[in-house]
């Protein structure tokens, strides 16, 4: 291959990389509503009980640079509200849990209602506004029940 062609190939690679980077950034913090009413058993997560009104479950690993920041955000969001429990589950040596909960990236956040049903999943860093909106929905519903 000539040098010119090689440099053009590198330029193409660069453009492709930028596109991939922008796409991945877009997908960050995307929320997915759960379709089924699967209920989470707190014992699986190492907890004795769920939150009275809602539970935030964060799946992390030791290889996750983003997780400590998200941990701070979620635990502060839980502390700001009554009856919301925050749980952090380390999946580094727990492939069984990762499989059970279909976790493919970290951080992954689950929003559970008071019965333990999964209402939503967020992959990547959750946006604070989106999080507040979801938590208000969850805790608001429970208040009207």
């Amino acid at each position: 291959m000539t040098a010119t062609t090689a440099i053009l190939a590198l330029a193409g690679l660069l453009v492709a990389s930028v596109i991939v980077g922008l796409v991945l950034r877009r997908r960050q913090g995307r929320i997915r509503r759960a379709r089924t009413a699967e209920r989470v058993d707190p014992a699986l997560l190492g907890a004795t009980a769920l939150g009275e009104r809602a539970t935030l479950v964060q799946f992390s690993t030791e290889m996750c640079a983003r997780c400590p920041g998200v941990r701070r955000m979620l635990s502060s969001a839980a502390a700001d509200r009554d009856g919301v429990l925050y749980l952090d589950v380390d999946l580094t040596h727990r492939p069984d849990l990762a499989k059970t909960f279909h976790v493919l990236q970290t951080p992954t956040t689950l929003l559970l209602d008071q019965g333990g049903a999964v209402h939503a999943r967020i992959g990547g860093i959750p946006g604070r506004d989106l999080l507040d909106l979801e938590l208000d929905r969850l805790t608001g519903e429970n208040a009207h029940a």
Partner: protein
Amino acid sequence: MPDQPTPRGIDPRGPRFAASVTTVLLAVAVVLSLTGVSTAQAGAGFGWFAYQPLANATFVPGTDFAFVAGQGWAISYVTPLQRALDPGFLLLLVVAALFLWSVLSPRTAPWGALFRRFIQPRLAPPSELEDPRPPRFAQGVGLFVVTIGLVLHLVGVPWALPIAAAAAFVAAFLNAVFGLCLGCQLYLLLQRAGLIGRQRPAAT
């Protein structure tokens, strides 16, 4: 809760700086691999002497069927030593050595040391520190990808070198420019494939 205590935090800008340097090295490696023996053809129209570095090279027996058929890769016609002397290979070997250094001894690895010595003193103190394990994992992934390319190239697989260099380039670029966390995206997938992160007995 984590089983072991978290290691002392590092300035997160150090690994980002290292990723930037690595990105540049890998970009050069991509270009060198593409212009080297890895992608060169040994077509009948030109004869394999058309690839100039091979003009005086010895024909390696056992590969003449491809030559007779009129199609072939130049890499099949050179000895492993000649493959190893390809500039793209040599640069990628250096990059692999740097990855290995970062995995084995992150504190002494060159780009981090350069950062701490010359750049960090000129910057404001970091707003927060990060766990050194995620960047170390990323270096390990880079080492793995590049090593596969190097080994395949040595045994004579064409295009192995530029493809490995390109894959490592994309990862380093995404980390340097977009702050992409490879461990965040890859660790659980590798765990699911059974390659890492085996179950430990539950702590009491």
